């Protein structure tokens, strides 16, 4: 069996792909041009999505988030703070939304529960006294770095070769099939040709640029958003607005911080994204609608990251692009075909394991072997194992 697979991109997706492949007996070589998770993954908002946010729009994504978040809670408890979440309605317009929201959660298998308004302030005293209704959902907080490092530890302990600071410069294609990749070790400056017939593109917002190296057109819409953190845990649960998903409507507690996010725009180049300081007052005011003390807490940091949305859209329609993930076997679909190349893009940080499974399934189908996935019920090692002698870091 062809065992070597080059995985491009060391965000949550690429690392989960490498972990899954290594458990199925492959020898993944993961190439990440910077530190692991230095793309979008390290910078996300930190919400373990149970799917409630998507229940009204896309039931499939909601179900998938519910499924994957339950798995992550079980296999990586050390990287997840599971305190639940509250959706709160704060305006008259939000009112009509509550019952519909509960129905959609039920349809998606999310055990949402209405919480009497008076009880909310007992659970979370900082939440606005003016809220009109509240719903509990099984959301949580992810430590992005430690969750992904746990996957990396698992991959390395199963023999994956993880190479941070390794940039893929070219994907070599001969007679319609992948034959190798050209990489640069950015720590030494040395270039190396890795022979391989199998490549997984897990390049997130950069996946379009990476696919282009193999002559494939993959439309991505890098869509950045700003987040702002204040010092102090305003709440222990994730607090979201009970209304159609929009800007500045989720507060995620993490360590002694509270983080409000996010905004959304469209970027031409994910390498040239500037954090919009003008978003900060907008975000903290929006947070105050749910938690009135938010903007009075000391400011801690503001930053941005690019969503890896699949598809092409104009700036006005970028919110309409799906948050679903997509796995493409480029040997089977698209105008220009390249055998041995798989792209796995889109999705959420919460769905990394599922994305790893989908990409590994696709690799198995290319080599015509059925090897089952075994990542859903195996406890992951802690993030510190990444530095254990067995993991070679």
């Amino acid at each position, binding site marked *: 069996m062809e065992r070597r697979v080059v995985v491009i991109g060391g965000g949550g997706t690429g690392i989960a792909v490498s972990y899954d492949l290594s458990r199925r007996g492959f020898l993944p070589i993961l190439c990440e041009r*910077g*530190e*692991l*998770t*230095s793309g979008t*993954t*390290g*910078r996300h908002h930190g919400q373990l999505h149970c799917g409630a946010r998507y229940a009204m729009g896309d039931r499939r994504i909601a179900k998938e988030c519910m499924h994957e978040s339950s798995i992550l*809670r*079980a296999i990586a*408890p*050390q990287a*997840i*703070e*599971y*305190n*639940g979440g509250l959706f709160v309605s704060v305006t008259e317009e939000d009112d009509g939304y509550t019952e519909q929201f509960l129905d959609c959660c039920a349809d998606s298998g999310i055990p949402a529960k209405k919480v009497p308004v008076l009880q909310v302030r007992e659970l979370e005293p900082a939440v606005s006294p003016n809220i009109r209704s509240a719903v509990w959902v099984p959301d949580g*907080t992810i*430590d*992005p*770095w*430690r969750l992904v490092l746990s996957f990396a530890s698992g991959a390395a302990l199963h023999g994956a070769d993880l190479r941070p*600071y390794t940039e893929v410069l070219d994907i070599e294609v001969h007679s319609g099939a992948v034959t190798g990749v050209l990489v640069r070790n*950015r*720590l030494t*400056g040395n270039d190396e040709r890795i022979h391989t017939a199998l490549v997984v593109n897990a390049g997130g917002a950069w996946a379009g640029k990476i696919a282009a190296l193999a002559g494939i057109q993959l439309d991505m819409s890098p869509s950045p958003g700003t*987040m702002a*953190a204040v010092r102090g*845990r305003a709440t*222990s*649960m994730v607090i979201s607005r009970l209304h159609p998903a929009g800007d500045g409507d989720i507060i995620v*507690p*993490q*360590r*002694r*911080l509270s*983080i409000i996010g996010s905004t959304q725009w469209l970027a031409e180049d994910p*390498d*040239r994204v*500037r*954090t919009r*300081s003008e978003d900060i007052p907008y975000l903290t005011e929006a947070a105050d609608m749910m938690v009135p003390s938010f903007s009075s807490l000391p400011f*801690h*940091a*503001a*930053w941005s*990251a690019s969503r890896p949305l699949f598809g092409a859209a104009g700036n006005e329609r970028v919110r309409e692009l799906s948050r679903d993930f997509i796995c493409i076997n480029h040997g089977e679909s698209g105008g220009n075909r390249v055998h041995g190349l798989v792209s796995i893009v889109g999705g959420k940080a919460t769905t990394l394991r599922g994305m790893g499974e989908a990409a590994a399934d696709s690799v198995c189908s290319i080599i015509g072997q059925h090897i089952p996935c075994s990542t859903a019920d195996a406890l992951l090692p*802690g993030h*510190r194992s*990444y*530095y*254990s002698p067995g993991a070679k*870091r």
Partner: protein
Amino acid sequence: MKEYVLKVSRSGPFRWSKYQIKAEETTTIVELLEEVESTVDPTLTYRHSCHHGSCGTCACIINGKEALACRTTVGALGTEEITVEPLRSFPREGDLVAHLGSMIRSMPAAGSYVREDECNRREGAVFQRFEDCIECGCCMSACPVGGDFIGPAPLAMMNRELQKGSKLQEDIRSKALSRSGAPSCRDHFACSRACPSYVYPGRHIQELKKLER
């Protein structure tokens, strides 16, 4: 927008690279490094992930002091020339890339930010909080003791584990109180001054010193 000179210590043969760069007062050092990497010098290597002081990867020495590059703004530094060097007391892998393995391996295996039995409660979650140490290495770099001293971060973590009633009490205690543990601390408190995450490791080491051997 003002003009700054970013002076970065490079790995390999000893040298500094200087980059002239425009930035706002609120721009952070990690954003400057990203800008340099994507527009002028693609060979620059540094560590970063969360950009908000929570993952601990971006620690380096900025204008002579240990700090998180993502939490240091050019405005707060107040100098036109900004020097950036990798952390001391760790092997260096790239320009600003320190390898923190030695510190991480000294940390107690179970030493996590929430106790194991607090993790992942399905029903009736008790409100948890990730613990404060972000394992960035600032305290280790600032500590002047050196030698085979275990160092502030792992010792602080050992003390937390003892306070939390870890199952590995005896093991942790004997490591923490061994010759390379708390007794080697010379009370400089450089660790507490360098910690960007409010752990105050020096205080934990003092508590360990008070424990009976």
